[in-house]
């Protein structure tokens, strides 16, 4: 399924970046888990302002009402734009590095000269991406737990934290699948990243637009964030459908990307 040598090579090339993102997510979650509960009262009073309420609803995926519970505040640590941007950036940069990044750098020839099929190259790259994704989630959870512990906060209960993180990992898979498909179509990392970030920014904008402008609601199903709503988890529902949708988007894009790569002419740039 995967090639050990190629896996090691990809790991060595992405190690620094991956660890930086993991460290970043750990630090953000640590900080947010420690700091957010301190502002619970202030946030509740801010929610009386319609615009702020709309912003929070957009981020958490549900109308909060007039006040915010401590658990909802803790959940905010998992939907903060900085967290999403950090995770999306990591998965997008990682995913487009093969094949688009390698073709652009001129190093893909050496990989293709190895006795490894294109499908296996693709699978190996994917497996390392999944490993980075899991490590990223683990670092987020550790940051969250240690942050709450350090400042004597309760944080999210495990029964809520676990599905939130799973849902976030499904979002990671969707973004990863889309990025890998785009990477297989383009021959330059810059173009591929541009398109992926375009899609992600559109997702963010659409998510906020829906709260501000009713008719945009008809298009909300196109936004990836429509399928990542921690507040529904806090209210007791397991986001099975949302996770399935995100995983399916990721898997379908990944499969199409694999077919594109299998049949692609690899140019010299």
């Amino acid at each position, binding site marked *: 399924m995967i090639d050990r040598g190629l896996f090691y090579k990809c790991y060595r090339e992405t190690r620094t970046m991956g660890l930086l993102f993991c460290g970043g997510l750990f630090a953000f979650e640590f900080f947010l888990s420690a700091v957010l509960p301190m502002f619970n009262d202030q946030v509740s009073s801010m929610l009386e302002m319609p615009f702020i309420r709309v912003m929070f609803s957009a981020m958490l995926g549900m109308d909060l009402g007039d006040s915010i519970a401590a658990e909802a505040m803790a959940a905010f640590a998992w939907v903060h734009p900085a967290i999403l941007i950090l995770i999306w950036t990591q998965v997008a940069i990682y995913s487009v590095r093969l094949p688009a990044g390698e073709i652009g750098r001129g190093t893909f*020839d*050496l990989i293709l000269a*190895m006795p490894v099929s294109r499908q296996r190259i693709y699978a190996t790259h994917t497996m390392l991406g999944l490993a980075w994704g899991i490590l990223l989630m683990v670092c987020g959870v550790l940051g969250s737990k240690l942050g709450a512990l350090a400042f004597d906060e309760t944080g999210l209960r495990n029964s809520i934290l676990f599905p939130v993180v799973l849902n976030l990992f499904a979002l990671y898979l969707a973004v990863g699948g889309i990025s890998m498909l785009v990477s297989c179509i383009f021959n330059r990392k810059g173009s591929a990243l541009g398109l992926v970030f375009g899609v992600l920014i559109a997702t963010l904008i659409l998510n906020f637009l829906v709260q501000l402008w009713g008719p945009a609601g008809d298009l909300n199903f196109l936004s990836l964030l429509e399928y990542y709503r921690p507040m529904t988890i806090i209210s007791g529902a397991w986001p099975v459908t949302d996770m399935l949708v995100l995983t399916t988007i990721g898997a379908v894009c990944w499969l199409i990307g694999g077919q594109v790569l299998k049949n692609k002419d690899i140019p010299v740039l």
Partner: protein
Amino acid sequence: MTTIQMKQLHKKYGSHHALKGIDLSLPKGSLFGFIGPNGAGKTTTIRLLLGMLRPTSGQVRIFGENCWRGDARLRKRVGYLPGDLKLPTFYSVAEAAGVATRVYGRPLEKAFHELAEYFELDPEVPVARMSRGMRQKLGIIMALAHDPELLVLDEPTTALDPLVQGRLTDLLRRRAANGATVFFSSHVLGEVSDLCRRVGIIRAGTLVADEPLDQLRKRARRRLTIVWAEDETPPAPPDFLTLEQNDGRGRHYTMEGDAPALLAWLRDKKVDDLSLSEPDLDDLFRSYYREEAP
């Protein structure tokens, strides 16, 4: 046994016809020089050979297997050095050996270190701190270390000093003597004529020549200078000689063909001195590069 087989190989990029029906067959142990000007189709041919491009039509096979759809394990038998070599920055000889050992599933560290010693490359220096020549040496080592049966080398001597070029040539000769096939692409005639026994010349996507180097030498022009004896009126040159310069008794010609015809012509003529240059392969190749082949 045939190592490389191309039959009516065509490749189009949109409306650009990059290869126009290449036919080529290389037996095991060949030392084949593949030369042509930039943009002639050398790299496209190599990329088709390695399965990086799909032929528009025609066939390209290595060891009898289709290069595009063939098993990836086929490449265990192939060593490849790209023309525009780019390496991962963390690579050193030691790191590259580690990756190759895992990929090829057999220990290659010893081979990497022996080759590094042969090419005088420090095994611990990473690519980020290497000069261009050092990177080229590492690329060559990576292509050779698993002892492939087919070596595809695209401009391998780029950035190498003459001493290292000589070592590479020696090593390739030894590999070929042991049965490896060498496909050596270049636009520099000198390095091809030093190493290869057979040469293919590609121009504008067409293989305009494919023959043993000795044959090409016979067809190449030579510079001939004859100093005629004082009592000999210089005769009109025969068909195989062209008078280029007249310095009185000294006449400078270009000669096509081989020496026996010249000796036959001179048999009953009085000559004070004569000099005949080596076949001018450069001139012959330039004539192939021009619009109309000879």
